[in-house]
């Protein structure tokens, strides 16, 4: 037979959903539970987060930071989230920080503060190898985070929208998705298409009180007198920052000029959330720690920057349990300890203890992941196919560590999915499968009998 007509002997069968019997579209748990915000997978990008688990922590931040008016100059400007569980890794601090940033940025804090504040939040993740140890690299991280959050685009769009509404009161902004609107407002083509006068809009924007006294090469003023003018964009801001050589210029740019720019776009505050803060002091000498603390004090509290004068930027540092001891001396010597004591008791308003998960938290944690991948809206129970006791067993074996719980749940579900007829996961199933190296997370590490080890007598070339 001609090969064009030949067919393979085996047919392709449609793959069936292995997790369908559990009323799930996929395995909802991450196999490697680390937060990666760049990922599109909701299991690891921090989008699945059960707020109730960290309700206590959130409420403390809400009541003592977010709801306090930014115009009250005595508002807390520096706070600490301190891990109080015995193992710092995988307890969900990074996920919580992502959640907090999401809550702040979703309505720019207007909802939380009952319209007292309009704030944005950016997150900093110091580099683990110690590259973020200088204050300059720290502020570089702040600027890149500001860029990545899209806040500059939002501000540029806000300024233009306000200008359009004032100059063209009859211009109708159609009800559309916010993201699309921001994109259009930042586009030259859209302005031309809508027939809006570029010069008029720009002049209106630049008349703002907040934008006076800026350097002439600041991105908003760039190309002003050139033949072919363009709207300033995010890349102009980046380029401008790269061209600044001196640290003092960078500091002035971020903590004075950008602060005024943000105010011109109606923001009255910004949150800098610093994850794994110890990655900075861990690499610093005593002198460097003190200098860093002094710089931090200067930009947040009493330097010549606009931010310090207004208390525009608020900083929340996430610390592991051993870190306060590491920086206590620098804080004391730099005067930060007087302004925002790190050595004080955890019941003070600016210190947010981050506690170990409880049994109830473990149920909520798995429940929220399961809910995202549910096939039917009404499942047998929120935690189906797991029963309560099985989840508590998983939590116990995982030492109530969030990352370990999720990882174990992933492998337990995989194992259960491969067993025909099994539709429920109970405590017995967890106990029976605990020894499985994939489930216990202790697979394939060499044990002592397989390790290479030097024979000292041979090495010393001793004849026995």
């Amino acid at each position, binding site marked *: 037979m001609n090969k064009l007509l030949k067919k393979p002997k085996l047919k392709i069968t449609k793959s069936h959903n292995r997790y369908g019997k559990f009323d799930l579209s996929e395995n909802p748990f991450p196999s490697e539970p680390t937060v990666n915000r760049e990922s599109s997978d909701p299991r690891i990008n921090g989008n699945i987060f059960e707020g109730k688990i960290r309700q206590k922590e959130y409420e403390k931040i809400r009541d003592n930071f977010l709801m306090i008016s930014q115009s009250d100059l005595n508002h807390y400007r520096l706070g600490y989230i301190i891990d109080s569980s015995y193992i710092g*890794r995988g307890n969900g601090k990074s996920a919580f920080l992502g959640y907090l940033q999401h809550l702040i940025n979703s309505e720019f804090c207007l909802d939380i503060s009952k319209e007292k504040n309009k704030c944005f939040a950016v997150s900093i993740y110091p580099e683990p190898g110690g590259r973020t140890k200088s204050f300059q690299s720290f502020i570089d991280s702040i600027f890149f985070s500001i860029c990545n959050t899209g806040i500059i685009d939002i501000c540029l769009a806000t300024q233009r929208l306000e200008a359009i509404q004032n100059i063209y009161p009859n211009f109708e902004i159609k009800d559309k998705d916010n993201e699309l609107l921001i994109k259009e407002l930042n586009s030259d083509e859209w302005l031309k298409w809508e027939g809006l006068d570029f010069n008029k809009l720009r002049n209106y924007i630049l008349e703002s009180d907040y934008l006076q006294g800026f350097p002439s090469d600041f991105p908003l003023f760039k190309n002003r007198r050139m033949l072919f003018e363009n709207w300033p964009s995010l890349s102009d801001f980046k380029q401008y920052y790269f061209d600044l050589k001196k640290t003092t210029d960078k500091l002035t740019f971020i903590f004075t000029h950008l602060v005024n720019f943000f105010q011109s776009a109606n923001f009255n505050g910004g949150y800098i959330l610093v994850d794994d803060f110890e990655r900075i002091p861990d690499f610093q000498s005593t002198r460097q720690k003190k200098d860093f603390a002094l710089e931090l004090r200067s930009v947040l509290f009493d330097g010549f920057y606009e931010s310090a004068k207004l208390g525009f930027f608020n900083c929340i540092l996430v610390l592991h349990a051993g870190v306060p001891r590491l920086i206590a001396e620098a804080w004391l010597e730099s005067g930060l300890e007087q302004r925002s004591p790190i050595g004080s008791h955890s019941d003070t308003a600016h210190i947010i203890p981050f506690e170990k998960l409880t049994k109830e938290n473990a149920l909520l944690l798995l429940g929220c992941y399961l809910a995202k991948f549910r096939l039917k809206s009404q499942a047998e129970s929120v935690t189906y196919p797991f029963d309560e006791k099985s989840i508590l067993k998983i939590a116990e074996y995982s030492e109530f560590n969030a*990352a370990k719980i999720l990882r174990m749940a992933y492998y337990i579900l995989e194992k259960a999915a491969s067993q025909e007829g099994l539709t429920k996961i109970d405590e017995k199933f967890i106990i029976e499968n605990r020894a499985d190296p994939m489930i216990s*997370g202790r697979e394939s*590490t060499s044990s002592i009998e397989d390790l290479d*080890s030097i*024979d*000292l007598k041979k*090495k*010393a070339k*001793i004849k026995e």
Partner: protein
Amino acid sequence: MIIKIFIIISIRKTIFLEKLRMLETKKIKSITSVRKFYFLDYFYILLLSVDRFWKMEEIFESFKILKQLYQLGESKYKKLTSESMPTKKQLDRYRYTLEQVIEEAKEYYLISEEKNGKLELTKSGIDLLKIAETKGNREFNLEIFRLMENQYEAFKYIINFAYEANKHKPGLLIFPNYSPSQMGIARKSIKCKDDIIQYLNSLVQRLEYDLEKFIGRRPNLVSHTNKIVNRLENSELLGKNKKDIFNPRDYNKIIKRIRDYWLAVFLKDIYHYEFSASSFDFWIYRGKQIGIIQVSEFFPNFSGRIVYPTSIISEKVNDPDFESLYEYDNGQSLFVHSLMEHQNDEKFVDTLVKYYFDLRKSYRGYFINLLALRELVCYSLKISDYVFEKLLNEVYKLNILGKLKIKISLEVDRLPEETKAIYLKREPVIVDGQVRNIIGIDVTKGGRKR
């Protein structure tokens, strides 16, 4: 002037007499006559106390305060509730320890007792205290080690014994310990004598398997099950009939008896150690502090204790990585594997990276427990905790200067003593003056082979 000469002569005479006494007693004592304490630091706090006070009660007070200050004792790395006063029982124990330390210090002529019971530092004691204060803990321990070896030659015995006991994996002594749950038996299901027998049977199989792997021979251990059961019956922890249910309160006692039994069997019957088990314990832990014997109760993926020498006894060595710590009368020396030369940095880094990735498989995170990594690296390179810390400090400095092909990140998480939840008797790793307990390594920078 005459008085001055007289004083000088009398001091010289005392020194001469001390030396004479030391020479006279150069008979090797039985290693079982060692006093019952592990920490070499006890000598330091005794010398400090005797230096400052002479009345026994005052010495005891000072010893007690310093013991708590340096956190010496069983709870070295457990958070001490310093505000609570020691109980009568604790005070009796402290007093007993002090007496033991005094007795041993007298043997080494570090202190002397006058007729009126007054304790004084001898010239050797004063010198040793000076070493502790000027040269630090390491030198102090080495001096104490020399004094001990002078009298007991216990380390020589233990090191030779270890190499003799295991030729398959030279010098490695394992003391496995598997609880019922580690054997896959739930505690709830152990109720009667028969359940204990089932546990013992599976335990025997596991121990035989371990021995075959670790020491290269498989002794038959089955007869021990009966012996253990008989002992438990005799002490009325188990009944006569298989179905007799034992008192659940005795569960821990029974499991502990089984564990102790097997420890003794391993030491005496399998490795042929001639002395008491307690003497073995005291000498290996002292050896660990000196850095010549490594002891680990937390070796990754092994349940129980492992012991191996990081030194050898030999007349000479043909490798620069060994350092002589002691010379015996028969011409042999104790050489410790010190790896202190700079050319070993690369070998150390390679081993560090190799086992970092090995452990990452089980920890599944960027950061892994540094103490667990230390266990693997020390065993692989046959080095002590002290050498590990030295080398890690060295390569960490290179890392900070950007002179290493990889990036090492050492961080401080919550320390064992800061938590009530865990109790660990493990020496911390101090790098760059900071206690570190987790490590992350990035090899992408230089593309070092995994």
